């Protein structure tokens, strides 16, 4: 058991820290979930890419550094520590890319990955539909074979597509076998949002940003090479992505240790007026972020030894999402009557409330934990 950096990890950390300290924009960029903010964030992504920090764990040929998981964790820790901007490209990099690496053809990888790493192409996800939220397998958007054109025709509606109004591409599931039900007969497609027949309509989120979009598909043609993996295997491929969404890749511990640091400073500003109950809540929030960090360190060790358990990522999902709400609620309480003022704290609070919902509600996660990790009977 050794929680200290190896010499090479330490030098990786030092390099990341000094670059980030120098380059992280100040003042903070406006929210990347608005049109203007998104453009500014893409400039930042370009800068990250040029210094080879945008996708550290990827192979060098795609713009990465072949970093180990430990190094990736170190980079994340330093990134949040330095107050690095939100990663508006995260849905491509953290959700689509793992599937592309596993299921994509070499041609697909060579086409998409470098442009994703540089931010020239930005991806949003097309999972949810108006009647398919937690129950993803109830997807009704369909793909019809176009033999003549050598491809597929996509129709239907996706919704809750984060930053959909600003991205260039969408990845998502469509029902390619009209006879199929539930998770059978779905295919995973990669679609440019400027394709003919695609309409994107942005709409507002609890925190006021136009962070969501509905994406309508009206007989949209995509060629055969827009299919990721095999036709009809979309569910399996998407689930591998969903797993990344829930687990480490979307919510690295550095995010929460950094949040707790901000919370400690906020508490500090109150000085002696901060009552004992709130002091203890801040300490508990710190303990929560630490516990999450320690759990993930153990998990990464298990991952590298091949002993990660089935559905373990559901533990991460429930824990980080509730921790985040607790951190933000504590901040709101410290702020008192100023809590309602629009700003980083109130926005982070509202954003945190989405955590227990997206990427599979915590209710679903708890079912999975009980059924898959504890062996409880399904009904």
């Amino acid at each position: 058991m050794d929680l200290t950096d190896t010499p090479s990890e330490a030098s990786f950390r030092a390099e990341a820290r000094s670059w980030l300290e120098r380059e992280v924009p100040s003042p903070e960029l406006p929210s990347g979930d608005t049109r203007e903010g998104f453009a500014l964030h893409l400039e930042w992504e370009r800068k990250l890419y040029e210094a080879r920090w945008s996708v550290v764990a990827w192979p060098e040929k795609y713009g990465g550094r072949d970093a180990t998981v430990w190094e990736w964790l170190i980079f994340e820790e330093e990134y949040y520590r330095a107050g690095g901007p939100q990663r508006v490209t995260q849905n491509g990099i953290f959700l689509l890319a793992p599937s592309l690496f596993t299921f994509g053809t070499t041609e697909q990888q060579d086409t998409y990955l470098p442009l994703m790493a540089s931010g020239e192409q930005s991806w949003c996800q097309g999972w949810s539909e108006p009647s398919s939220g937690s129950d993803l397998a109830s997807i009704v958007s369909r793909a019809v074979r176009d033999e003549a054109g050598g491809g597929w025709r996509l129709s239907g509606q996706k919704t809750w597509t984060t930053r959909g109004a600003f991205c260039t591409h969408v990845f998502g599931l469509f029902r390619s076998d009209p006879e199929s039900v539930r998770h059978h007969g779905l295919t995973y497609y990669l679609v440019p949002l400027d394709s003919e027949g695609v309409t994107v309509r942005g709409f507002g989120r609890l925190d006021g940003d136009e962070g969501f979009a509905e994406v309508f598909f009206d007989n949209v043609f995509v060629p055969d090479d827009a299919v990721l993996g095999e036709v009809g295997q979309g569910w399996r491929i998407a689930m591998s992505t969903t797993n990344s969404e829930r687990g480490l890749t979307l919510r690295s511990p550095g995010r929460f240790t950094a949040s707790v640091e901000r919370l400690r400073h906020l508490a500090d500003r109150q000085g002696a007026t901060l009552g004992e109950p709130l002091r203890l809540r801040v300490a508990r929030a710190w303990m929560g972020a630490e516990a999450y960090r320690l759990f993930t360190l153990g998990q990464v060790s298990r991952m590298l030894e091949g002993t990660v358990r089935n559905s373990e990522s559901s533990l991460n999902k429930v824990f980080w999402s509730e921790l985040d709400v607790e951190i933000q609620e504590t901040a709101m309480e410290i702020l008192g009557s100023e809590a309602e003022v629009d700003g980083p704290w109130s926005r982070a609070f509202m954003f945190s409330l989405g955590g227990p919902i997206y990427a599979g509600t915590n209710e679903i996660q708890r079912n999975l934990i009980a059924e898959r990790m504890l062996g409880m009977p399904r009904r």
Partner: protein
Amino acid sequence: MRFALSEDVLAVRDGLRSALRAHCPTELLRDASSPDGDERVRGLWRLLGDMGVPGLVVPELRGGLGCDEVFMVVALEELGYVAAPGPLGEVISMAAPLLADAPSQQEFFDRVLAGDALVACDTGEGHVAHAQMSDGFIIVRDGELGFVSRSRVHVDPVTTVDATRRSGRVRVDGAPATLPLAGLPRAIDRVTLAVAAELVGLSARMLDMTTQYVQTREQFGVPVGSFQAVKHALANSLIAVEFARPAVWRAAASMASGDHWASRDISMAKALATDTARQVARTSIQCHGAMGYNVEYDLHHFVKRSWARCADWGDSEVHVARVAQWLEI
């Protein structure tokens, strides 16, 4: 012993309820977040003025309805249920009764009673809710109580989570007109109680919306309301509402009868109503799934108003500490 509302109170409640359900739809809340909606908001206030609502607890001799605090909390619960825009709690429970004791402000007071003037309360702690839309300000500073009209106030708009509050930071030119200080402690108790009642109304509304939503929204081939986790979350919300409401009623009765313990009972009511609203807001967002996150769906109005009101006039921890003090724990 009897712990139920009188016929008179029920009549006021029912009258107000039908007026509000007809004239305070959720579209009004969407409009209310920008100056463009001012006229519609003022229309609702004038309607309420016609019904006597701003002067509900003002003595009849001074042109009010002369009702006691039990009437007040029942009215505020209804106003909370529709998240009526504007500083209604502050006007009904604080500004109108205070101005009633200040003959020098007679003209403005008449406009308040008519629902023609909105009044914000500035306690000197940061920004002031409804500052952008108010015609006058109650000013509480260093143990002094004053009133000043809009013309003598600079307002810097502040954007808050509940945009219908149209908040601002306030700077007063010169000294405010002095109001009799004796009424202040009672006024602060009363406005705290009013907000507790509003929170019960807001909670009841969020629970109703969520109950309806989970019965129609289907996932996995069944309404999401058929899942035990959803049922239990909503059952807990109902329990919270049902046990907070009697505490608000009792605090109102204590205040109305001049009970020695009224302040304690009001703190208990505010604490329970605050805890309830926070719990129900969280549950409602969770049970709505992504829909609770969509500002094109109405839930967010009630959630945001709840958060704002939870922090107004002392959050739950503050009031629990006061209860502890009263009980000499």
